[in-house]
């Protein structure tokens, strides 16, 4: 397998933690809530899933528990940021620190242990195509994440639920006047985002690299938040952005494997540098951000 085939085959799996977390953050931000705790939510989901899978509970239970745990922690965010109307930036940072701390605490006795990942499910016929065939042999979570992307895109494009969430984020006062429960919608959006961040963390720790190491999320939660900006709050573009980051992280691995003479630290910081550069390019287009951005993002709602 050459480097190109390696990247094509692995891109979607590498993209999945970014994709799931960014889709969750998308829903929360569309409802007008900026939750910066994604890194901590992912870390918590990752450790919970790992412990359950390691103890023999299986992947399904691991994912469910991770989603529940991260949703619960994101509800703490919601109670403080929405209920008590605290500064969303500060609450998000605190949740991030708390989640990372809890993950290190719970994972202490599991350091460097490994579990078994998930088998690849191939699409018959398609996965035999040369060069790009690897694209069609993915594990079940990748397939489900693609389905989730389409579902969230369709929700915002075609359903009333999507419209209500967007109305609550664009103009909460008007949404309230129309009789929609602004705070309840925001709570639900945050909890949904938390659950997806938990799944994202679980995928990272029990499928993509099925081993436990403290700090293994390594900034992916933050990149997911940046991806929402890259994707200008659209599920389709977020998917493309996640693929880009999947490819970038795999390119670093491929470069190291082929013995390319680039320092491994430079390769490790590549995703962060790409984030900074792309963020600069997209954000400098102020019209694009204004057009697609969420008007009341980060502002507390008070009647």
């Amino acid at each position, binding site marked *: 397998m050459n480097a190109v085939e390696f990247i094509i085959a692995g891109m979607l799996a590498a993209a999945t933690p970014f994709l799931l977390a960014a889709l969750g953050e998308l829903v929360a931000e569309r409802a007008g809530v900026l939750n910066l705790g994604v890194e*901590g939510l992912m870390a918590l989901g990752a450790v919970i899933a790992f412990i359950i899978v390691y103890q023999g509970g299986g992947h399904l239970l691991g994912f469910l528990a991770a989603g529940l745990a991260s949703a619960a922690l994101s509800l703490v965010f919601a109670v403080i940021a929405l209920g008590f*109307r605290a500064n969303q930036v500060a609450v998000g940072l605190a949740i991030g*620190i*708390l989640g990372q*701390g809890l993950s290190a605490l719970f994972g202490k006795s599991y350091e460097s242990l490994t579990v078994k990942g998930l088998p690849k499910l191939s699409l018959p016929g398609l996965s035999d195509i040369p060069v790009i065939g690897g694209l069609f042999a993915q594990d079940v979570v990748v397939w489900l994440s693609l389905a989730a992307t389409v579902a969230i895109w369709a929700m915002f494009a075609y359903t009333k639920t999507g419209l209500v969430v967007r109305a609550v984020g664009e103009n909460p006062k008007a949404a309230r006047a129309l009789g929609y429960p602004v705070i309840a919608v925001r709570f639900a959006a945050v909890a949904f985002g938390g659950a997806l961040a938990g799944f994202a963390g679980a995928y990272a720790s029990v499928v993509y690299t099925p081993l436990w190491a403290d700090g293994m999320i390594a900034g992916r939660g*933050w990149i997911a938040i940046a991806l929402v900006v890259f994707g200008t709050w659209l599920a389709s573009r977020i998917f493309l952005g996640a693929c880009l980051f999947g490819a970038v992280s795999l390119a670093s691995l491929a470069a190291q494997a082929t013995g390319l003479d680039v320092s491994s*630290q430079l390769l490790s910081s590549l995703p962060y540098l790409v984030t900074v550069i792309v963020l600069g390019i997209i954000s400098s287009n102020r019209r694009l951000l204004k057009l697609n951005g969420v008007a009341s993002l980060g502002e507390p709602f008070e009647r």
Partner: protein
Amino acid sequence: MSALSAPLLPVLVRREHASLPVKLIAPPVALALATLLNLGLYLLMGRDPVAVFHAMLLEPFLSWASFSEVLLKTAPLLLIAQGLAIGFRAKVFNIGAEGQFILGAIFASAIPIWFPEATGQWIWPSMLVIGALGGALWASLTAFWRVKLNANEILVSLMLALVAAQLLNYLLLGPWKDPNGFNFPQSVMFQSDAMVPILIPGTRVNVSLLVACALSLAAWIFMQRSFAGFKLQVGGLAPRAAGYAGFNEGRAIWLSLLIGGFAAGLAGAAEVAGPLGQLQRSISTGYGYAAIIVAYLGGLHPVGIAFSALLMAALYIGGDNAMVSANLPVAAVRVFQGSLLLAYLVAIAFVRYRLEWRHAAHGSTS
């Protein structure tokens, strides 16, 4: 609120005036709340909560030896938090102080690493200055991205902090690795003139604590007495009003980030030129992130920050104590830090709001 909450739940009602008493008691209340929650957690983990409480929150203050270590840790937290608070008040969220701290340490280390034979009392002061400039330089990348490219400073500063950690690794595994260091990722030990002089004999407390106190005073004067500080605060509280008054938003962002980077860089320089005496991987144990909590817990006020820096430093030392005496994982400190900030954010809500129990008859119409 009431659409979600059942009629029996209390609602937050805005006060006519912000409550100063609540503002003053919010930090101690938050500390008590976080302590209770965490002791409960330790109990669940099968540790003796009384022993942990003693080791973590009392012992740091009980002996001069450990209190001097608290003072040693206070200096960097105090420096970084004072710088960050100025930006936070202007609503410029520099959360990458960790990276600016690392760059400060790297810049400062360049002098003793490149000139190991140099002597003279000029070395350590120049290290502090160059470190501070290094931190400001790293922060200026974020400022440029925010002002010129309209990019979110939270994400950019954080990404650059992660890059800074990799840069440090690169230097310590490559060009700056001590050739006689048994392959450990650390630089050579610095010469004695590269060390900040000890302030209190018999301890490791050095002059950087004085520097931090002096800069705290400067921060107080800047924010409470200067026009530039006033402009920053107006920009944070009422961006539109600041715009109408002709206060330049770009300048406020540059100033906030440069001050934050300068202070964090200085702290990083003082760390390698102080207790460590060399550049190593573990130069920062999350000071840059902990300082965010210090800044908020201190009410973003220079005087409050002095107290919260001391508290956070005690938590670090206490966490180490509890690790040894009560077998508590060191990650417990991070859990404590996170829950402390959350408890504070809840407590501080009551400065502007009060709780009111409304009955269904009143609440349903509003």
